[in-house]
């Protein structure tokens, strides 16, 4: 755990802005995907409206912290943007509390179209078709943008990406902490029960409508937080980004990653976010993929990435319906099972005693 945290702090010292930006997008996507995983994976409620709540967070921050707008301190604006996304989810709760499963998915479609229309037409707030530039995040006089104050850590100049990396990491850690707490606690159990059997949940004392709406609100708030981080990483918000395709991307993330798990949603988010960017960057080295901008009718990198993750979804659904998370768990189980059979190897490599007892406990029927 500590090793992982340290490893996640290292990239700004070694990687250039391109990689850091991929990391930032992936972190933002992971926060949003965790929110959707909670709603769709745990509570069994389909939502195609995630792009709307991402947009609420992104534009909410931009307007609240920016000019024209109230020009609030950015930290306060970010907090309010998250609450705004939650409130938007709350306004939808009469629907979200009553409609279940795939029917909610269709109902939330309306939100995406409505949101996109508002983003295009409410020029004074959203900047219309061309969008708005996003004011940089500041906290206690420290700007998460280029310069002001100039900062060099261990000989590495800290520009916007390097600084945002740590902000993203903090928000991402917060998301993990809270989402895992939720899933293991009372609300998570109630939501899982709703998914598995609504009648059983109700008879156990779970208020069905209240928990459905609450799951929707919480999911919207994570989406809002993801939206804030996305806006900060892009430095510009445009309406066309927040289309239905974005909602579908998030569904792809949680399906590829494995429904209902925080780690799975993260893995799926990294995969879906990083793939197109990496393919664009290395297009010239890939066979059968044309360089970006060439117009000779061959497959461009963006399309190739779409094909690849289309194929990934099909493969996951066919061979690993529980996603990357399930694959990882099965691989781990297999390693564990194999280890006790080969005890003659280097004693330093054999598992320590507590792990061994935990393992045997798990396998007793």
């Amino acid at each position, binding site marked *: 755990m500590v090793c992982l945290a340290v490893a996640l702090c290292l990239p700004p010292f070694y990687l250039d802005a391109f990689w850091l930006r991929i990391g930032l997008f992936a972190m933002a996507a992971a926060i949003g995907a965790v929110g959707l995983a909670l709603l769709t994976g745990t509570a069994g409620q389909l939502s195609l409206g995630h792009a709307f709540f991402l947009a609420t967070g992104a534009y909410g921050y931009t307007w609240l912290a920016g000019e024209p707008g109230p020009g609030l301190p950015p930290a306060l604006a970010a907090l309010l943007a998250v609450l705004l996304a939650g409130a938007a989810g709350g306004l939808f709760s009469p629907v979200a509390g009553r409609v279940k499963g795939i029917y909610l998915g269709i109902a939330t479609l309306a939100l995406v179209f409505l949101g996109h229309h508002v983003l295009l037409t409410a020029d004074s707030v959203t900047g219309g078709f061309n969008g708005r530039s996003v004011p940089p995040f500041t906290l206690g006089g420290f700007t998460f943008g280029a310069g002001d104050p100039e900062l060099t850590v261990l000989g590495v100049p800290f520009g916007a990406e390097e600084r945002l990396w740590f902000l993203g990491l903090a928000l991402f850690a917060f998301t993990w*902490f*809270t*989402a895992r*707490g*939720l899933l293991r*606690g*009372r*609300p*998570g*159990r*109630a939501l*899982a*029960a709703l*998914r*598995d*059997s609504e*009648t*059983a*949940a*109700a*008879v*156990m*004392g*779970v*208020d*069905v409508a209240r928990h459905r709406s*609450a799951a929707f609100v*919480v999911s919207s708030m994570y989406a809002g937080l993801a939206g804030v981080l996305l806006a900060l990483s892009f430095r510009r918000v445009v309406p066309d980004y927040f289309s239905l395709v974005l909602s579908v991307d998030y569904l792809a993330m949680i399906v590829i990653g494995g429904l209902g798990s925080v780690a799975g949603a993260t893995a799926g988010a990294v995969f879906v976010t990083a793939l197109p960017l990496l393919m664009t960057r290395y297009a010239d080295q890939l066979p059968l993929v044309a360089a970006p901008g060439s117009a000779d009718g061959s497959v461009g990198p963006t399309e190739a990435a779409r094909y690849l993750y289309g194929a990934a979804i099909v493969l996951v659904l066919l061979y690993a319906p529980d996603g990357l998370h399930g694959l990882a768990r099965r691989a781990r189980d297999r390693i564990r099972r194999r280890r006790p059979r080969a005890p003659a190897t280097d004693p330093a490599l054999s598992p320590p005693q507590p792990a061994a007892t935990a393992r045997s*406990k798990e396998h*007793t*029927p």
Partner: protein
Amino acid sequence: MNDRTTTAPPVLDVRDVTVRFAGLTALDAVSLTVEPGTVHAVIGPNGAGKSTCFNVLSGLCRPAAGAVTLGGTELTRLAPHRIAALGVARTFQNIVTTHGTVADNLMLGRHALTRAGFAATALRLPGAVREQREHLARAREIAELTGLGAHFDSPVALLSYGDRKRVELARALCLEPRVLLLDEPVAGMNAAERARTAEVVGELRTELGLSIVLVEHDMGLVMRLADDVTVLDFGRSIAHGTPDEVRRDPEVLRAYLGTDTRGEDAA
């Protein structure tokens, strides 16, 4: 934590309850009274309306007429989760467990007794953490009581049929109920499992003083455990009394065994 069980449970009273499903009368003016601390069996052939009766008691089904009261509270207008909060727990005829471990299922059973909300749980506030710890300890006790102690951290999906049935019973007990509704608790179990479950149900009544409503096809179990028996046939209540009285009732013999020669003589 389990202060409910220290006081005697209230009377559960079912008055003239009628349920119709699109022209089919599933329950026709059924009345029964569950005295505090007794086991009241509801028996009858398949399709007699036993499970519908349970669905009315737990709020999953609204009767067209009649009323169900627990103590002074009318249950017929309440949502299922409110009825659960009053201390009415039930099991299902077909096992309805959720994913996860036995512990997860039992903690779900304590939902109505716990308070931690979304915000407190997400931020892992001390109150929520403490609540979870305390209730987990109680859930473990209940697992021991029902013979699931060894499986507490096992995924429910890996358990045997009999054990999963017992998870349902344990989960219902986790509500610290005053009235426990058991829908065929031993159906599909082998003889040893039946005996064990019967023993647990018997202990529940004597030690915790619960009122238990039991739907069961296993007549041996009904005769051994029940204080009162109500017999349903085609949605009507055809007999009521102690197990011995019901066993000798000609209407009951007719319903169970078809038209009996002695029954014809009597007619």
